[in-house]
């Protein structure tokens, strides 16, 4: 009986002390190593994300700048001097030397319109209808 118990104890000790201890140590070392790498992984991920954000922000700013440059080109092409140049050089127009006015019985033409992108944005008109509270009060006898 006693011999049997001693044999089991030795076997258990063999498993834990001889065969498993190095594995436990290796596993523990790997866990510790991996745990140590976690901040690095997190930092790397964050760095990559920040880098992506910065790149996207740069792209957004670049497109915004390109858009504004194009708007300015439109403004310069719509300038009076540019219009005059096109009229004279491309369309071969010139100043009228004999202006004759005729009077017609008709309303004056509408004012010239300008490209909508050059006009200030229109603001949405505030709602002027009854509010929900007004509707509820209106239902009261």
């Amino acid at each position, binding site marked *: 009986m006693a011999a049997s118990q001693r044999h089991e104890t030795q076997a258990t000790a063999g498993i834990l002390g001889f065969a498993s201890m190095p594995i436990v140590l290796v596993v523990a070392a790997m866990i510790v190593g991996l745990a140590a790498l976690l901040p690095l992984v997190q*930092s790397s991920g964050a760095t990559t994300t920040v880098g992506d954000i910065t790149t996207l922000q740069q792209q957004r700013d670049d497109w915004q700048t390109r858009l504004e440059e194009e708007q300015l080109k439109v403004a310069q092409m719509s300038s009076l001097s540019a219009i005059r140049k096109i009229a004279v050089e491309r369309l071969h127009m010139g100043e009228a030397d004999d202006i004759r006015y005729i009077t017609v019985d008709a309303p004056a033409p509408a004012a010239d319109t300008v490209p909508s992108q050059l006009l200030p944005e229109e603001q949405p008109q505030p709602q002027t209808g009854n509010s929900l509270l007004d509707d509820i009060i209106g239902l009261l006898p």
Partner: protein
Amino acid sequence: MAGKRKRWSNSTWRIWAVIGLIALGGFAIVARLVQLQIIDHPRYAEAAREMHLSQEIISDRRGAILDRNGYPLAASQDAYNVMVERDAWANPEDAQYAATQLSSATGVPAKTMIDIVNSVDVFEVPVAKGLNFTQATAVRNLQLNGVRLIDDPVRVYPEGNVGAQLLGFIGSDGAGLTGLEADLNAVLGGAAGSITYERDAIGQELAVGERSETPAQPGANVVLTIDRYVQQIAEQELKKAIDAHQASGGSVVVTQPRTGQVLAIASYPSFDLTKPNLNDPKTADGIRNRAVTDAYEPGSVFKLITTATALDLGLVTPETPWFDSGEITFGGWTIRNWDLSSHGDETVQGMLTKSLNVGAAWVASLCGPDNFYNYVQAFGFGAPTGSGLSGEVSGSIRTPQTAPDDWGPVDLATNSFGQGLTVTPLQYAMALGAIANGGTLMKPQFVREVDGPDGLQAIQPEVVRQVIKPETSRTLLDMMGVVADSVSSDYLSVPGYKVGAKSGTAQVADGAGGYKATYISSFAGVVPLENPQLSIIVKVDEPKDVPWGTVVAAPVFSGIAQKVLPYLNIPPGGKAAGG
């Protein structure tokens, strides 16, 4: 025993001395640590924070200045400067390589950039300025060590120098220096923001460091009442007259009488808005917006004010007769007509049509000084118009109340035909607008809308006061029509439209109570007479050949009206004025 005690005592003393010294040193170290880490902790923590934190002031785009139809007159365009750290170019080979690379992107010679870096003893120096977006992208893609780009936006003027004095320009710091750029700087400039970030040893932002940002507020776009075409025409016609008569300068103001909105305000000489050279005295002279900064004696155009006063008081009608003896005496001073002749039996209409000084003085004497000056001030003379433009002057009106020791009866007479008092072209334009607007004086309006982060804000026209009765206004307009009809079509011709007008020719005051041998020619007109949509005041300074307002200034009015009326789709009414 005693010897042992002595030796023991000596060694004990030494041990305690050493222990004491060590304890003292330890205490000093602890005290110092307490001072550094507890007492002075905030200060050192802040210093440490500052050492690895960088802050950049950021500003958003400056708002644009647009004409009444939304066409930009001044706008900001992104531009970039290339900054180089001196230390990064300390090695000549590295510098040569980087400069060669930069040169291909910027167009600036490599040697020039290296010389710039070596010529100064600062941390960082700009080696190329004003790069456009394409060039800046090329520089950025080079990814050179110690080289970075900074924003340095430039102001561009799609319409060139149109409205130069009104618009003004900005300084190198982006703030407005003159004109509307200065007057509306708070609106156009927005608010600066900042970025604070943690940096590494070479100044680069840490990807996962501390970062905070206060965003900049963009400037608002300002929509003016100015019409770019009307402004350009006004400037061209004014310059044409100045060149033709070798005049020293001039001003034109074009307004809408009903709203007080200014469609054009031109002054000459002008300056190059795109490249203002402040070292050039001519530039300083050209920057002045003479229509608001220069007061002058208006001369005979002021007879309209005198006539309006008498008509409104019911003292005269256009047909009221009077006798022109060619001279009239006030306080011992004799007033004569401009042609030094008498015209016999005349009417008030004749006084205005022939521009008779004697008649104007007689009409003013009927009104009396109190009434006369009350109306003069009610028309807005002697006080700023409230335009909001910097540098605006009030002009000078002396009355028995304001200058009891410096005013005499003769001043009433001379004032009646626009001598002895000073006004600005803008003041007169608004008074003329009141005559054309049923007697209602409007505040001059230059800004129509402000389109900013808080939304679109529309500026409404503002009534100052009712100066004369609507009936008086109509009567005076008809009288101005008669005056305009009497002007030769060689000088005043607006086919299809009937015009109301009055010319003026005034000697230039010498500042010492006398007059120089030079003149200011002016012309004030409204069109169409039946329902005035435009009022135009033209002033030409010191023409060399002829002084007459009809000859010098009326053609400017004609040139503007001929082109602007069809452009604004203002239908003609009544018979043509002049030819």
